[in-house]
Structure formats: structure tokens, C-alpha cells
């Protein structure tokens, strides 16, 4: 019976993981840029939620909007002023650039917010959800629901809106999109902004689950990597599948092998999947 509880934990975690990874996957898929800043963007979103709650009493679920908007602006600015300059350079260059930016931003956050782990404690938790043998705090379930809703909204945006279609077009063929009149460098900036927005929103939701510290950025980045490889790159359904898969694998791995091996398992899995199924578990290269 414990397995139902473990599975439920994994699913809730997985929904949040999907939201962590979808922005990272979008940037990687469309721009061919590995955004090392992603983890730090997530932590920044958590801090926005923390300060909004502690100083202004705004619930983290509401801060999703402000954190998302703030991070969109930062992401848009970073891409249009810095990353766009070297977007055509080899992989190593863009990776190194975002690594440098991450060192910079993460260090500034350490100075501004200190390395202490802080916890956002909700004064009026929503209580417990109880289905048969499974117990789950309602706040977490709601956070997962919101995370999946946001991910779904991004999916609709990419499918239905004019800007979304332009992003998908750039993803498919940069030159052809440019010839069709798409302003590629603007689309790049919007895409990077959307990736950062999802990171900020995810960070805001995660603030009620994880302790908050700039030191966590590496952990979130690592998870985003694993999920992208699990689910396949640049597709929203891939990120959801990868996120849920990682959540479930981590939960069961912690039960069977002990929590200290959770990281080893997920990274070993990552290497194995890269060797045997480089296109991800779903197996097709997604464009949406």
C-alpha cells in the first residue's frame, strides 16, 4: 500500500519538475542554447514569492504571475543584449556565456540574500487530501495543478498564437523562417523570455515545497537536464513525460535504494538514455 503513496508523491513532484524543465527545453530546442542560468532563474522566482509573502502577504500562487513577468523581462533583456550576439557561434561559446552569467547572477544573489536556507511557511495551509491510503497536503496538489496548467498554457501559446507559430517555425528552420519574414532575433528574445518566465513561475510554486537558497540552483539545473534527456528535447509533452518520469523514478529510487542515491540514479539513467535513446523516451523530435 505504501507504493500508492510513493507513486502519488512522485506524480506531485513530477508535475513541478515538468514546469522546471519546460522552459529550459524550449530555449534549448529553439535557440540551441543550453541556458545554465535556468537554475538561478528558478531560485530568483522563489525569492520573489518568499519576499512577496513575508512582506506583503501575497500568496505564492499569486506571485506566480509577478515572478513570471519579472523573469520574462530579465530573460528578454539577457537574450536581446548578450546571447543574441553569439547565437551563431559554436555550442561551446553560448554555453560558456550563460555559465559566466550564472556565476555573476548567482554570486550577486548570495551577497544579497545570503546562503541560508529559508523556508516559506504558509499561515493558512489548505489541509490534507485523503484518497484511500494516500495522504497529500492540498497545497502541494494545488501547486502541481498550477504547474501543469502553466505548462499547458505554454503549449497552447506555441500552437495557437501567431508568436507561438513563429517560435515553432524558427525551431524547425531558422533560415526559412527568416525568409518568410519572421524577425528571428526578436523571436529568440521572446523565446528566452518565455523560458525564464516558466523558470520564475516554477520557482514561485516550488517555494512552498523546497527550502530556498541560491545554492539550490545547481540542483534545479541538473533536474532540468535529466528531464530534457528523458523526455526528448524542445517539446512540451516531452517535458511533461520526462518530469513525471523523473518524479516517479526519484520517489521509488529513494524507497528502494535510499534517498542518498537519488541523484546517482537519475544521472546514471541520463547517461544510459543518452547512449541508447538519444532522442528521448518518446523517441520523436518534437516541434511544439
Amino acid at each position, binding site marked *: 500500500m505504501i507504493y500508492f503513496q510513493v507513486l502519488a508523491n512522485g506524480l506531485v513532484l513530477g508535475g513541478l519538475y515538468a514546469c522546471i524543465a519546460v522552459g529550459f527545453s524550449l530555449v534549448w530546442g529553439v535557440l540551441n542554447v543550453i541556458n545554465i542560468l535556468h537554475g538561478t532563474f528558478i531560485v530568483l522566482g522563489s525569492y520573489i514569492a518568499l519576499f512577496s509573502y513575508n512582506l506583503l502577504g501575497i500568496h505564492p500562487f499569486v506571485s506566480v504571475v509577478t515572478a513570471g513577468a519579472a523573469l520574462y523581462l530579465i530573460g528578454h533583456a539577457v537574450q536581446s543584449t548578450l546571447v543574441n*550576439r553569439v547565437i551563431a557561434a559554436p555550442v561551446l561559446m553560448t554555453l560558456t556565456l550563460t*555559465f*559566466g552569467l550564472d556565476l555573476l*547572477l548567482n554570486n550577486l544573489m548570495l551577497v544579497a540574500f545570503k546562503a541560508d536556507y529559508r523556508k516559506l511557511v504558509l499561515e493558512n495551509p489548505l489541509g490534507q487530501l485523503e484518497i484511500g491510503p494516500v495522504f497529500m497536503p492540498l497545497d502541494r496538489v494545488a501547486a502541481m495543478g498550477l504547474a501543469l496548467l502553466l505548462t499547458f498554457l505554454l503549449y497552447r501559446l506555441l500552437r495557437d498564437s501567431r508568436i507561438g507559430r513563429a517560435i515553432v517555425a524558427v525551431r524547425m528552420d531558422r533560415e526559412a523562417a527568416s525568409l518568410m519574414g519572421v524577425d528571428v532575433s526578436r523571436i529568440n528574445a521572446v523565446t528566452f523570455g518565455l523560458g525564464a518566465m516558466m523558470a520564475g513561475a516554477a520557482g514561485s510554486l516550488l517555494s512552498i515545497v523546497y527550502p530556498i537558497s541560491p545554492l539550490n540552483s545547481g540542483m534545479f539545473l541538473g533536474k532540468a537536464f535529466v528531464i530534457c534527456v528523458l523526455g526528448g528535447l524542445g517539446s512540451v509533452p516531452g517535458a511533461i513525460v520526462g518530469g513525471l518520469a523523473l518524479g516517479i523514478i526519484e520517489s521509488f529510487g529513494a524507497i528502494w535504494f535510499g534517498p542518498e542515491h537519488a541523484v546517482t540514479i537519475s544521472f*546514471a539513467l541520463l547517461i544510459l538514455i*543518452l547512449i541508447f535513446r538519444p532522442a528521448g523516451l518518446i523517441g520523436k523530435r518534437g516541434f511544439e
Partner: protein
Amino acid sequence: MKPWLWLVVFVAACALVPVFGNNYALRLATIMCLYAGLALSWNFIGGMAGYPSFAAAAFFGLGAYVSAVLQSKGLPIGVTWAAAGLGATVFAALIGMAILHLKGHYFAIASLAVVEVLREVVNTAEDLTGGGMGMNIPLPGMPVDVQARLFFFAMLTMTVLLLAVTIVVSRSKLGFGLRCISQNEDAADILGIDTTFYKVAAFCLSAFGVAVIGAIYASWVQYIEPPDVFDILYSVKPLVMVLLGGLGTIFGPVIGAVIYLALEELVWRNFLTVHAAVLGGLIVALVLFLPNGIGAVIRDRTKRAAVRS
């Protein structure tokens, strides 16, 4: 003959440090050799073959731990260093055959994951490695200043060896093949270059150098723990140094290491709390303004001067 001449000049300059310099200079020179060795090692796979490897930290930590464990079993220090190098070479050959068929970002991530897995494995293998407690490595029982010199000369020897190998490789068929791979792997394959073998060879060379340097480092600092020797910065720093000096060149990595160390010392001294931020800013500036390294700027200048006159 010119590269060999520069090699002799480099060795002579370094060998003078223990004669004239104080302990601080000696320590700095040891770190310089360490950095230059890491950069030269990374250059085989990252610079010549053009594969963005982040596995250096894995080999560094592996070398450090192999040497430390063997030393704690009572083996002589030199033997443990050699064992560290050989062990890492075999490990790199196995891992390389598995992940070197990946390209671009995928390869970068797979190599990054190797670091994470090894760190966690060492962290949990407490019986052998002490886990998160780290390992104290017994002193060889000699005065501190003699030790400092010994480790400096060990680092210097390794760096010179790597520099010599770089010169030989870049003039051999292997170097030619690697440059072909970095320009167009499919074309190289069609031309009859055994790309898998060449890539694995470059990866192994890189692993050997990094692991021996890691082993010497472990003996030098006498205490290691997983987050220290499997620090991802050991993967990133060589990359930055090689970018600074010039990808795939012979002396670029050494020049890059010297410049990087100078910057790092200045930054550490003057901006202790924000040194990572300043370092990050430098990396950003480097990518945006000097994408081909400082060497390229100097070469361009001399060329332009030659054209003018």
C-alpha cells in the same frame, strides 16, 4: 623547431622560481603548472577534436581518489600517481566509447553527468573513501619546504610532459585527424579516418593528464573530499583558459592559464565576497569580445603591422 625552443624557455623560467622566489611565489608557480596542465589536457579533446567535454572534474577527482586510496594502503607516492593516470585512461576509454558518438550539447551533458555520478559514487563508498568525511593523506615525512619543492617539480614535470605530447600530437597523424574531426566529422570519416579511435585516443590523453595532476594535487594538499576534487569548476576553468589562449593551439593553453591565474589572484585579493561574480563577468566579456582568444588578437596585430610596413 620553434615550439621546442619555447618549451625550453618555459621550463627554464619555471625552474628559476624555487631558486629566487619566496614560498608564495612557489605556491603560485605550482598552481600555474596545475592550471597549465589541466588546460593542455583539455585541449586534446576540447580544442583539437572540438568536443565540448566537461568530464575533466571527473578525471581530476578520480585521479585524486585513486592515488589517495592507494597511498593509504601504503604504496609509494610515485606509484600511486602512475596508477591514477592509468586507471583514468582505462576509465576514459570505456566511457569514451559509450558517449563520444554523441554530438554537441548532448556530449557536453553526458560528460557533465559522468562528474555527478562519480562524485556520488565516491560519496557513498564510505568504506574506501571515507565518504563525505573526506580523506587525510599521510605525510611522506619530510620538511615542509622540501615538500613544497617536490610537488612543484612534480607539477612542472607533468606540465612539460603534456606540452611535449601536445607538440608531438599536433604534428602527427593523430593531430591532423583530430583537426579534421573538429572541422567536419562526416567528411573525416569518409576520408578514411577512424574517427571513433581518434576521439577515444584524445579523450584518454586528456583523462591521463588531468588524473595525474589530480593525484599530485591530492598529495600536495593532503586532504581531499568529494565536493572539492569533483568540483565542476575543474571542468570549466581549463575551458576558459583554452578559450583565452586559443583553441587547439600548442602554447595557447599555457598562455591562457597564466593570464587566468593572474586575473584570479587579482580578483580573489580585491573582491573576496564577489569574486565569482567578477570571474563570471570576465568570462562573459571574453566570449563577447575575444571569442578566438588573446593569441588571435596578437597574431592579427602582427599581421596588420607586417602588411602596413
